[in-house]
């Protein structure tokens, strides 16, 4: 009987006779959620609760001992948050996700799960300032050291690996020079050394880049940014691809040896695909407790429903603004990977075919004062320290986040006195261009005065 063969009914799923795969936009709206079976709610309900009533003592014990799935206490899991975790896992094509209180909490949780005192990390030097802080200043107090290497220095990354290295870390698109990490090459270095490669995919989201396709093992997001997309909440998440061989590596006894803190559980015996996530939740969330609130998960899920549409608009607006800035005589340089002069231009087609994001930097000829005037001359662009909002954002590092630094020190950090960072939003592009035009005009006046003073 033909219809009784494994797969026969399914081969009829579409006219091409190939399996149909649920696509990104559909998963962004639906993954992880079945309509509420009790009340029929279509939106994801917010389960605003700290705890859950047990049916009986037997069920309670089974939940705590992982004999049955479910929720025992909201620090460990929550039904609303679980939808977010499953949805980002589906979009990244991983095995699962673990939501955290912030992106910083996600990074800390990953490191605390994988490592002990005496471990070492090789990190891209072009990472978010908050990530740099914890790696450079905080973790050494707990015996975990980091070697920073330019993401473009492939040999430097390879040579920085030590016997106690337990992670290679970087960002798809780094700060402030929009450095694009060569994911397949770095992933291969990690694979050769039997250590995982974790990538911060905050700026790109799974819509623009899927790091697992290029060999990354773990992904972290600051969900505050594009995933949420509306600047309303703080949150983070880890996603595990499930392909790293923790036992075969021989370097991760935390995951492959019995853990006395959970009935001698060996996490990779218990979950061959998600040992990392299992320990991160069962130990990390239990002990460090940096969990995501259910209302926060709800806001992020609302944002993710429109992720594709927003990212397309972010990118198209960015491209138009860059074209506009290129024609301005007060703009000195523009750093965006899609420009041929960018050092990582050659990576864009392969890694970022849908666009290189909407956060980029450019430099004004008038230096620190011109930058300050430019920022203050903007109306639609909000002057603040964040990125990834639907609204356009701007910051002038030399007069804000880096204001204590001299011009020389700024240059060492890859920033000039006139560097402006934009996070381009999804407003009407003509209004954004009008706003930029006005501010550039004001900046030009200052540039002229400065130029006059210098020449006079």
């Amino acid at each position, binding site marked *: 009987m033909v219809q009784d*063969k494994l797969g026969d009914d399914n*081969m009829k799923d579409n006219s091409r006779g190939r399996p149909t795969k649920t696509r990104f936009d559909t998963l962004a709206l639906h993954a*992880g959620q079945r309509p509420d079976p009790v009340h029929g709610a279509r939106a994801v309900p917010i389960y605003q609760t700290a705890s859950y009533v047990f049916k009986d003592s037997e069920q309670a014990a089974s939940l705590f001992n992982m*004999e049955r799935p479910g929720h025992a206490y909201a620090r460990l899991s929550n039904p609303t948050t679980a939808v977010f975790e499953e949805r980002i896992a589906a979009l990244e094509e991983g095995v699962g996700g673990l939501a955290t209180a912030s992106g910083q909490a996600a990074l800390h949780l990953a490191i605390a799960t994988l490592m002990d005192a005496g471990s070492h990390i090789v990190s891209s030097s072009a990472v978010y300032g908050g990530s740099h802080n914890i790696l450079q200043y905080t973790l050494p107090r707990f015996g975990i050291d980091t070697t920073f290497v330019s993401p473009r220095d492939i040999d430097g990354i390879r040579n920085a690996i030590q016997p106690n290295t337990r992670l290679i870390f970087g960002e798809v698109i780094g700060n402030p020079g929009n450095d694009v990490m060569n994911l397949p090459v770095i992933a291969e270095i990690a694979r050769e050394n039997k250590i995982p490669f974790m990538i911060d995919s905050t700026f790109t989201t799974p819509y623009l880049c899927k790091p697992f396709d290029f060999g990354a093992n773990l992904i972290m997001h600051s969900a505050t940014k594009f995933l949420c997309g509306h600047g309303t909440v703080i949150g983070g998440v880890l996603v595990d691809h499930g392909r790293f061989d923790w036992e075969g590596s021989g370097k991760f006894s935390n995951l492959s040896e019995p853990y006395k803190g959970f009935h001698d559980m060996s996490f990779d015996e218990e979950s061959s695909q998600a040992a990392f996530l299992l320990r991160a939740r069962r130990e990390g969330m239990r002990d460090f407790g940096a969990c995501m609130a259910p209302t926060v998960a709800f806001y992020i899920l609302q944002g993710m429903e429109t992720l594709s549409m927003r990212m397309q608009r972010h990118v198209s607006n960015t491209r138009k603004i860059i074209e506009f800035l290129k024609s301005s005589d007060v703009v000195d340089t523009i750093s965006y990977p899609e420009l041929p002069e960018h050092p990582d231009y050659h990576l864009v087609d392969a890694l970022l075919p849908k666009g290189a994001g909407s956060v980029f930097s450019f430099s004004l000829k008038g230096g620190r004062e011109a930058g300050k005037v430019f920022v203050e001359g903007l109306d639609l662009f909000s002057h603040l320290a964040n990125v990834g909002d639907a609204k356009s954002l701007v910051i002038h590092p030399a007069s804000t986040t880096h204001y204590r630094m001299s011009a020389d020190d700024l240059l060492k950090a890859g920033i000039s006195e006139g560097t402006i960072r934009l996070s381009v939003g999804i407003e009407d592009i003509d209004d954004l261009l009008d706003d930029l035009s006005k501010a550039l005009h004001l900046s030009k006046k200052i540039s002229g005065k400065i130029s006059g003073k210098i020449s006079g």
Partner: protein
Amino acid sequence: MYLKLKGAKLNEVNYAYTGTHDLASDLETIVFVHGTSMDHTVWAHQSRYFAYHGYNVLAVDLPAHKFSQGELLPSIERMAEWLNKMIGKMIGKMIRQMIDQTAGTAFHIVGHSMGALIALEAAANFNHPDAGLNSLSLIGFSYPMSVTPQLMDAAQHNPSEAYSMMTQWSHRSAIGGEPIPGFWSAGMQLSMMENSKPGAVHTDLIACDNYNNGEAAFANIHCPILFLSGALDKMAPAKLAKAQADKNECAEIVLIPECGHSIMSESPDGVLDELTRFIGGRRK
């Protein structure tokens, strides 16, 4: 009396999950057998539950699957023979540890998909003088378990496509929303298959496709049989399980609603509750 099998290594090349428990000679034993390109963790909740509720548990990794070494076995009969050898070794160790040398041991075998065929064949050839087979549970079962040519071709020439096909067809929907917080069941299955040994999916599917001893095997089984299927199973349609259940007076069939083939992850509690009822009811 406990056996020295802690750490779950049955011997150097064969692995079985025991729920981090030593095996006790005074407890009945449940043997769990996974399906094509899978491993013991498909039984994560069910095996752990029984291990903490008064049973010995052996959730095996078949040869050349996950932690078990050795060569891929080419037929259901060979895999069943291997399984009975493992059970025999375990019985031998249990008997040696027994204070009362006349005591016997009782077994229950549970299999899913290809593992259900292995369980069936192993049950039919269960011939251990010091042990009895108390029950057989066949989950996501169909007989025959023939494989569509497109899937077989993909398994041979493009395993990634075969993994993708089987993952999609094993779940009622890629949307997910499964009861296990934080995990995407389809992603878990795809990862497990991609992590399987080269050639495993093709070898396992050939074994399923070629197996034709089912009727004879059923005729040789005298213990109660539970058929447990997802009502929406597209890989091993429940109607085939029902056809077998109808022919066997020792059998019963239970369909779990809103579930496909990956029934242990789509309804972990549903499967566990049925196994608890069925196996618990056959406890001596």
